[in-house]
């Protein structure tokens, strides 16, 4: 019996010390290679203009910190097989909410004039983050418990949140506070450059997201749902709870993006971040995450955001090319990656 079983044993050659390339690594690897090639090419081509410097490299993260933050939230959503179109409007909403809370204006509600006190920026930010998470949560509830399409719910959510932002204020509101001055002056010098607040927030969120996705049951459940939702239910995983939380998490991440946006612009704008949702999806897909869910990584998304930033920065540095080329190149990259994923997944199936 044992002898018979032993004949049937699969014993693949094992090289524990060597990294073995596996099919699931290819999209991430491709992203990395593209990222490296783009950066090298840009550095060589733009060497006279000082593209190759630490401060430029750090600026990749600061200029697109809000894109990066929303992309991290979106990665969780897409990994679970869903989509969140409301992230762009969330940025405008949180920025205007913070600005309004710090500069309240009397408004009438049911014939009563209400005047809110002036809130401390930290309180305002806290309220905005809670509001963002809550709006995400509601969308998650609609998707999970009424079985509406994520695409549709978050599309309506996008209108709703953008509308809320407009209700708060149509025009932009400036913000001022000694604390914000301190935050903006805050810098940790690294060599010739320095790391500032947006980069730190981005780094902290990115690291936490990587931890959540790799080392928590919540994170693994997200992968399982995206891999096969029916199986995940049959395996007894908390699918409903996780799915609702994913949208709340995405709401939180994009709200945080809104906070960074407000701090960077010194104001709140209801139109801020408009149209960002599809750019975010593009960054996630370029980062190697499969839109059907189940496969991908936060690290890939960070690389995806980096690629978008490199393209944008290189075109600005180059000076003569119009910024439209950035959009076209991102679109072209998106196409290449989608086709690559298609080929990989069809080969994996056969």
């Amino acid at each position, binding site marked *: 019996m044992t002898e018979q079983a032993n004949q049937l044993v699969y014993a693949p050659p094992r090289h524990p010390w060597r990294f073995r390339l596996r099919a699931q690594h290819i999209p991430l690897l491709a992203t990395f290679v593209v990222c490296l090639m783009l950066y090298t090419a840009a550095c060589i081509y733009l060497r006279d203009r000082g593209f190759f410097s630490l401060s430029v490299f750090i600026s990749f993260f600061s200029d697109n910190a809000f894109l990066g933050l929303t992309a991290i939230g979106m990665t969780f959503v897409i990994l679970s097989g869903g989509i969140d179109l409301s992230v762009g409007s969330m940025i405008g909403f949180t920025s205007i909410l913070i600005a309004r809370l710090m500069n309240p204006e009397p408004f009438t509600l049911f014939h009563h004039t209400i005047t809110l006190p002036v809130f401390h920026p930290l309180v305002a930010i806290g309220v905005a983050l809670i509001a963002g998470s809550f709006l995400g949560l509601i969308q998650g509830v609609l998707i999970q418990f009424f079985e509406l399409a994520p695409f549709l719910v978050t599309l309506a959510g996008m209108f709703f949140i953008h509308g809320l932002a407009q209700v708060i204020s149509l025009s932009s509101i400036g913000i001022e506070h000694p604390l914000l001055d301190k935050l903006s002056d805050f810098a940790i010098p690294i060599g010739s450059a320095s790391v500032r607040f947006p980069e730190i927030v981005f780094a902290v969120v990115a690291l936490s997201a990587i931890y959540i996705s790799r080392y*928590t*049951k919540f994170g693994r459940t997200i992968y399982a749902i995206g891999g096969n939702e029916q199986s995940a239910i049959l395996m007894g995983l908390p699918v409903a709870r996780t799915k609702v939380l994913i949208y709340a998490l995405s709401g939180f991440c994009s709200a945080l993006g809104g906070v960074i946006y407000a701090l960077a612009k010194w104001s709140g704008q209801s139109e801020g971040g408009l149209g960002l949702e599809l750019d975010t999806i593009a960054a996630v897909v370029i980062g190697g995450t499969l839109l059907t869910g189940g496969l991908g990584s936060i690290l890939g998304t960070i690389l995806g955001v980096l690629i978008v930033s490199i393209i944008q920065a290189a075109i600005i540095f180059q000076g003569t090319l119009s910024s439209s080329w950035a959009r076209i190149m991102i679109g072209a990259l998106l196409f290449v990656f989608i086709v690559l994923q298609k080929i990989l997944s069809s080969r994996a199936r056969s």
Partner: protein
Amino acid sequence: MNATNPILLQAMSVTKLFPGVVALDAVNFSARAGEVHALMGENGAGKSTLIKVLTGFYPRDGGQILLDGKEIRPKTPAHAQQLGISTVYQEVNLIPTLTVAENIYLGREPTFFGKIRWRRLNRLAEQAMSRLNLHIDVKRDLGSYSIAIQQMVAIARAVDVKAKLLILDEPTSSLDSGEVQQLFAIMRQLKSLGLGIIFVSHFLDQIYEISDRITVLRNGKLVGEYLTRELPRVELITKMMGRELATFETGLATSVASDSDLKPPILEAKRLGKRNAIEPFDLEVRQGEVLGLAGLLGSGRTETARLLFGIDRPDKGEIQIDGERARMISPADAIARGFGFCSEDRKAQGIIPDLTVRENVILALQASKGWLRFFSRRKQTELANHYIKALNIATRDADTPIKNLSGGNQQKVLLARWLALDPRFLILDEPTRGIDVGAKADIQKLILSLCQQGKAVMFISSELEEVVRCSNRVAVLRDRRKVRELTGAEINEHNIMATIARSDA
């Protein structure tokens, strides 16, 4: 082994009702520790309903289930699992994009203050797999392994939750013979550890190789429980099909067109085959004859039809049409050559539920004509009404959505879809399943009349009596292999059953 083993699970007069159907009628069933218990029955026998009741997928409408002598009432599959009843399905219910190790421990990962301990998890998974005598790289994606390995991972997961009873629902359907042996090795191992195993399979050879006991269900009723070594194959088949050998009649169709050999073949399959679907086979289809395809469920009948209709691509052999080699890569190609295929899965592959009866009838004919040459509304209604009348379809009118019709009437609409094409070769896969006796007779008559018009028909049915009555020639399939062809006076139920039952071993 046998009766001395303690009873693990006992189901007593379990009943399950669906609207209009008694799916399980006071069925008794028991599984013993350290035994493989095969659950047998043809379509609609109630096997899957029984399993779904045992695993809490459906609530039961009557009866009792005892596990270790205590009454249980599983609410969900997860609940049943906690009670000790784990199930592994044919389509592996795991996450192909995660690693083997994760799939075994998903939901119960070892953690340290909420942080998953990957090393420990992988080590545990390796141990779990090696308990099944499988030494594979548990850090690889589940999807990169064969279905067989995936199934074994599913078993490893099922067993690791301290299961007492393991239900294997058609686990061997997509495995090759080597993989089946591997699975059996694991089953024997689990059996020796005192687990009870319920095994569902359509492969007789496998049943006789692995099982200790057989329970046969038919039409939602218990036929009986038998020790495998005391039940000859022919008897098992008669019990499953519900007929006594003595009452068999010979075919009526033998009197029809015995000169069919003179007519040229429309289609010839030469060593046509596809891995894990059907072994290479030769087959001829001639004008004006009904070719019956007999075999148990899962014996490769539908797979054969799919190859001939261009749905699946064969990886071996070729198809010749009118003596010339033909390449068919889509149903549209097959239809262009005058073929028709009425699928057995009415709901998933047949009806377009929201469209009307009229639209469903003209669909294939219209598709073959192209989208520009559209039938006028009047012509469509005329065509639909013709078939509503000819096939006796019970519908308010031709403009009723097909989803509002009963199953039998939907089936007739689908038949009409293919008849409207006036095909020279029509494949009918289980056309009479789930419809009443009168409609069955209509369809059988229709087949014979098609044949008299010089068309060729391939008739697939689980009801031998029907196959015998209608066919000029019968190809018998067993375990995905064409094993014999019967012609003329050879065609009777006894011969077919004997062919199905015969073991090669």
